[in-house]
């Protein structure tokens, strides 16, 4: 469990990185999350989550080509790793297991 520790926000970021595949860098990830989840994402939170996950080995990054845009600064592209995938799977699986264990009766809501 400890091995795959993944916070809620981290999980979203990781999924988004996966979704964006070869266009996952700071701005695009932020926009994507904001678009899909309809919530504001602070740059600081996103960046520190990215660095943290990189340190844990869920994602890797590399710097892109220099372009004229962005004041000549390179983009850092993130990619999900196999380990990151495992962590995602594990998270998903435990959630599904838990969800499936809920007895039907607990989910039958009636007006009473």
């Amino acid at each position, binding site marked *: 469990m400890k091995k795959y520790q993944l916070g809620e926000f981290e999980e979203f970021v990781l999924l988004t990185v996966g979704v964006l595949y070869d266009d996952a860098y700071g701005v695009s990830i932020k926009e994507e999350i904001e678009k899909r989840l309809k919530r504001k994402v602070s740059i600081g*939170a996103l960046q520190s989550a990215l*660095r*943290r996950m990189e340190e844990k080995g869920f994602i890797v990054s590399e710097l892109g080509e220099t372009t004229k845009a962005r004041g000549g600064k390179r983009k850092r592209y993130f990619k999900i790793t196999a380990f990151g995938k495992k962590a995602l799977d594990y998270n998903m699986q435990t959630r599904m297991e838990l969800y499936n264990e809920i007895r039907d009766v607990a989910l039958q809501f009636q007006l009473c």
Partner: protein
Amino acid sequence: MLKRLGESIFKFYCHPDFQEDILGDLEEYYEVNAEEKGERFANRKFLLDVLLLFRVSLLKDNWFTQNLIYTTMVKNNIKVAYRSMMRHKFYSMLNLVGLAVSMAACVFIAIYVKDELSYDKHFQNSEKIFRVANYLKFANNEFNLPTAPDPMAKTVKEEFPEVIEAGRTRGNSSMNIQIGDKFYQQSGITWADQEWFNIFKFSVLQGDKDHLLDEPNTVVLEQSTAKKFFGENDPIGQVIRVDNRDDMIVTGVIEDIPNNTHFDYDMFISMLNLDEARRNFWLSNNFVTYVELQTPEQQASFEEKMPEFLIKHMGEQIQQFMGADMVEGIEAGALDVRYFLQPINQIHLRSNLDFELNETGTIEYVFMFSIIGAFILLIACINFMNMATARATIRAKEVGVRKVLGSLRKQLIGQFLTEAVLNSFIAMLMAVALVYALLPGFNQLTDKSLENPIFSAAGLWPFLLLATVIVGFLAGIYPAFVLSSFSPVKVLKGDATKGKASKWLRNLLVIVQFSTSIFLIIGSILVYSQLDYLQHKDLGFNKDQILVVNETQLLGEQLDAFKTELERSSLVQGVSISGYIPATDALNDFPFLPEDATSPDESVSTQNWYVDEDYAEVYDIQILDGRFFDKNRATDTAAVIVNETALRRFGYTENPIGKKIKTLEGVVDNRGQTFTIIGVMKDFHFRNMTTAIGPHALFLGNSRGSVSIRFNPESASEIVELAETTWDQFASGLPFEYSFLDQLFQNQFGEQNRVKTIFTVFAILAITIACLGLFGLAAFVTEQRKKEIGIRKVLGASTFTLLNLLFNNFTKLILISAVLAIPFAWWYMEGWLSEYPFRVGLNPLIFILGTLGVLIISWITVGYQSLKAARRNPVDNLRYE
């Protein structure tokens, strides 16, 4: 503008790895914002983003994120040190044991020195407290006394503004104490002033500290004495009977006086009980007087005023009792009276007066032991250095490889130093264990009672820690620099280690080690022979088979009956009643003059002993001329028996029998008595073996403090029982106190025995450690010359030739050491011996023997290795695989 500020803030805190892409992202937002909402908004947004971006995980390296010390390298160094130690377990053990033993020796010396230096420093204001001591000279008599006349304390306090307080003690005696129906023989009793307690400010456990001894018939007890007398009961107000005569009330209990004090009293009686203390007599010195000054610097002004002060007070009485003018006497050189102050915290080590209150140490010993300790440690350090340089051959390859792989010299030095410090640390742990194991023996040897000298609050541990590091550095610095300086190319080719310089240094170090060892061995042989000489020298009387019964004055009138009863036993050869026992410092000094003397200048300071008629027989004193006292001659009360020295001093060289000597007229209680010499006795050692025999006179008289019993040699086991049963017939429960005279004599040699033991221990230590080093060194040299030995053997060299070859070098070194050590030992021991009036000569044989001993020990050490090498099959030495 704001954007640029934001950028620089961001660059300030953000880790450089992340700067580019995050800034890029920010730039992108900025561009979008500028296009959509205008530049001003974009600018503000940029700065805001930068500030909100602040996260710990994005920070630059700083003292938060860094390790405080880079431990990796140190860990590696320690690991390498451990491995190199384990690879040569035998040599590492040699090194460690040598270092540990010498460190233990040094720790002991440090403990001893620290304790010696701590004397009397525990008193509050100890630097302001002084003892009044004196140097007195009249005619040929000289005195150095720690005492002063009775009015001294009172008068200096009145007349000298510097003096805050002045107080006295008098004597240190043993008395009989009766509490209820129990008797105790209590020693360490002194008379003291209340002022004396005001000066020393002992912590008073019970009683009023300002009114301890300000009334007659009061006593103050030390805590342990109070416990002995009264157990758990409250001692205050209890009555104790002293010497079956005076009843006294306990008014106070003080904490035990620490051992590191120059006096040692257990019980204090009010000085008001002593009439003598108020006589206002300036011409006798019996009171140990202390003054407390306002500042320590006032010692000078106090002493400056002293001569005038003395002339004023003492001059009058000199005129009155001796009929002489003090000022004239001083100017003529016939009289010299000097009183001076001794800072109490220097008394233990620096004062060496005639009647010190307690055994004093000597600063010379403190210095000497410190030096010896340093030398022993040096020997062990040298071992370490020698082994390290000898092992350089092996380590050189390692150094070469490391250098090729990019090690810096600094790192190599660091590595070798770590190794050395690690070694010294392990050695120190062993040393501390050793110290605690041997502490009881040390306490016995030095007559101290230290329990936890290292880890207590004021213990030595911080110094020890520091010393460990320093020793490590000292031992490691040379190998570290030598080894790290090797050029990798040469080393790896295999020709850098044959440097002559290190061999020279090694030889020099071996010479230092063996000079020290030879010095110590010669020293201990000489100390030993001097002591042996003193202990077996003819005393002039027979000290064996004499039992001394003490405190016999308590028997009163019964004493003569006690004597007669003892004489009746077949075990007893003779009994004598006299408080004057040789070797007990029972001293009674008094000046005498030849009968025809006209001036006090001719007086001879003489020891006067009061004995009975059987004294000469019991002690086997030889009468050279005339006769001893006779019971049947009434005139013998005015007769005297003098020794040869006294005779010479009186100037009676021919026909002394019948000549007369007289006392000084007018000195208190002595109105010019005259005594006739009836016998001359052979000089005998009445005091101890370390002082010259002075003038000595025996008088017939009542001194009933002790009874000496000479018994048959074969009845030694029964004599104590006999004496005790006889004592009990007369003494009605009084305690029986006895000692054997030969034991009293042995006890006098405490100090000398101590020096002997210490010298011997140090000598053994030094030679052992030096030999440990030699052993290791021999092993390496032999190992290096393995091939040479093999070839020589093949070519026909005999075992003897080979041994000769291997011994030669060491023998040469040791002979050089001897040449260096012997003159120094000669000079030093001559100095030591010159303090003894009776001493052995410096026999050259001792020096030769000492050197020979060291030579033989080292041959044995080297021989084992050499013999092994010489007898090995040359094939084993020469074969490569």
